């Protein structure tokens, strides 16, 4: 065998070896088939909130919807005040009837309410102003959950947390509430982690709405320190899936 022939033979062997080493990486079957399942779809639900309130007589209705706010950040809206700065007198708190509705398609596992701030002020046009009274610090405040009639008590969420009716008005409850529940997250008033635990804090639709009577007032024993003084506070509501 000549040297040239030997070279050709060796090169042929090398080529065969190279092809083999490449093709064994993946099996190229003689037969194969393939099926696709296209078009699976997954759709998310919605979680939107609506609050409705009236005065204690059922008049002057208001509606606030989370979807009516700006697109960014979205699902957040600022609405008109619940308490309209009516003149209050010691021992005669002002109340509103609040209905909270989940208008989305997902149940909410948490319902939170908090008071981000409270600012003392002077009542416009008041002929007399107490010397050192702080409405934010001294006013009473209560959150009573009721049946849809706004009279049958279900649970008290503030100033106590218990089934049934709230206790009588407690001086300074407004300030204490603000001190304890002024931000989100971490200060949930109603939440999954609260006791009693509730996996569903706000079910879907009007059928699962929750009803509250929220009251704020001047302590009955006020000696005039709160005359002509006001408290300006927002209430914020939040639900999450």
């Amino acid at each position: 065998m000549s040297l040239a022939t030997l070279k050709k033979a060796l090169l042929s062997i090398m080529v065969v070896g190279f092809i083999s080493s490449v093709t064994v990486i993946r099996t190229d079957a003689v037969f194969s088939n393939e099926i696709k399942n296209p078009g699976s779809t997954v759709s998310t639900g919605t979680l939107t909130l609506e609050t409705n309130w009236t005065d204690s007589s059922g008049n002057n209705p208001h509606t606030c919807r989370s979807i009516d706010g700006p697109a960014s950040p979205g699902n957040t809206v600022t609405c008109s005040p619940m308490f309209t700065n009516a003149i209050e007198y010691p021992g005669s708190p002002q109340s509103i009837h609040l209905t909270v509705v989940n208008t989305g398609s997902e149940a909410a596992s948490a319902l939170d309410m908090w008071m981000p701030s409270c600012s003392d002020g002077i009542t416009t046009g008041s002929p007399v102003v107490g010397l050192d009274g702080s409405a934010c610090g001294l006013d009473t405040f209560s959150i009573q959950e009721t049946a849809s009639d706004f009279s049958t008590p279900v649970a008290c969420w503030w100033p106590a947390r218990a089934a049934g009716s709230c206790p009588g008005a407690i001086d300074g409850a407004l300030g204490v509430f603000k001190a304890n529940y002024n931000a989100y997250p971490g200060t949930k008033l109603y939440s999954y982690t609260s006791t009693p635990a509730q996996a569903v804090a706000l079910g879907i639709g009007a059928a699962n709405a929750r009803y509250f009577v929220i009251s704020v007032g001047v302590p009955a024993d006020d000696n005039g320190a709160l005359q002509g003084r006001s408290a300006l506070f927002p209430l914020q509501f939040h639900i999450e899936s």
Partner: protein
Amino acid sequence: MRTQAHRFALAATALTAFVGAESPRFGPVGFLVGLFAVSGAIAFGWNWWEGRHAGPETKSAAKSFVQTKRILMAVMALGVASYVGGHATLATFSAETSNENSTASSGTLTMSDTSNATTCASFGAGTSADNVNSGGRSPNSNYCAAAITLTNLAPGVGASALGVNTVAGMGKIVLKNTGSSDGRFLYLLAPYVNTTLNVGSPYTVGVAPPSSVPVFPVRGTVMAQDNIVFSYSGVTQTCKAGASAASTGVQAQGGATSIPIYGCSPATWNYAYGANTRVYDSSSDTSNANTECYDSGKTTTAGVVGATKGTDLDFNEVPATGTTSPTNGLCQALYMWVQEQDSTGMNYCFFGQTSTDGSQCVAPINSTFVSNDLPTANTFDTTTTTITVSTLTGNVQKNDHLTISDGPNTATCVANAAAYINDTTISVKSCHSYPAGATFTSNAIVRDTDAEGLVDNDATHSISNFDTTYKPQLGEIPLPPVTSNGNVNTNAAYQLTHAGSSLDTRTFYIGVCMIAPSSTAQNNLQGETATFGLTWHLDQ
């Protein structure tokens, strides 16, 4: 003496022929060769001896010897030919048989796919005549149904969220080898962005392709300069997406019904591509923006009657249109699991987060409570009991924490043993109920909070990640057969055997739930729909 030598040689030849034909003990060819050798040697030796010692009169017999050799050779050839050439009996009577028209036929390797009671085949109507069924189009009789259709999904909660879902929480796909050949390798993979041609008449071979081809709604987003492959009957042709090499950005959004093309190779149609021609983007599945999964729009129907829907909202994502690059945020936020459950109830998680005991996928459940078996005292109760629930659409790992809620009543328990998809009972222990004495009705929802927590931050197993990781040719997921919970036989010779055999059918379950990263608002994903596909591939 020379004459005698000739005679001896002839006699030896005759004897050889006779014995060789009749002897039952010796191999016929070996026997013949041996006798010829011996006879020839004797004849040759005899002739040589006579030649040396013969007188002049005997030398004249040399010519006769040459003739004798010729005769001997002819007889030998006849003898050998008569023996080797056939076994025909040369007699007055004869018989003969012949086997004509032998055939060799190839087997078949075909597959069917039954998804939620709808079955399609890898071949036949609506396919691209290459044993590939890319899904087809409804109402084609060979249409492959979607693996799963979920509505009203909420972050962090298993399907059938809080009991208000309208469909089952998982998909079921049964693969069957309908062919006569065994399938050695079965794979699960993500499809490329794809569609099929939507033309009335096939294109003409040799004619330049148009600048834009009509297609059925594209599944995914096509970017400029992507390779667009046309495939039918095993023939393919590749073009570039866009109007020219200068094109940039999105060329066809998910749902688009045409794709601009240029720069085809070859420059003219190499096949009469027509209806059912597969069209896919082999450059896709490289980023979240060009996966086959795509956010396909806002919901137009509320998940619950009377509730807000996607189109009511202005804060959720608007699907990408025109040349807008899609974010596919929902595809990124969807956790997917694929688990096989064999005929004996054994499970293996092929995609998704595997439970710490390895026996199952992390797949959050969301079942309803069927029987009131729980202790009602608000005390730590170590009693082990079994609760009956609606068919599980996920798994429960041993020691997972469960929550059972029914309005204001809630109970927490610990799973005493693993439970798997399709189970209807869960063994639990260490239950608390709130408030004391609480009872639970069939409205109660059972959830696995540990599983939900594990899914919440698992972007690794999102559908987007599935698409970019397990795309064709690069990352198929092999599907060896299950041997026991959490174990497969990777050395199995075949993974889907021929029709009628014991392993001709495999059953897979697919689930999706929404990832809920902690402290991350996902309002932009409210009321959205994502669309995706799965591909199953079988090799001989």
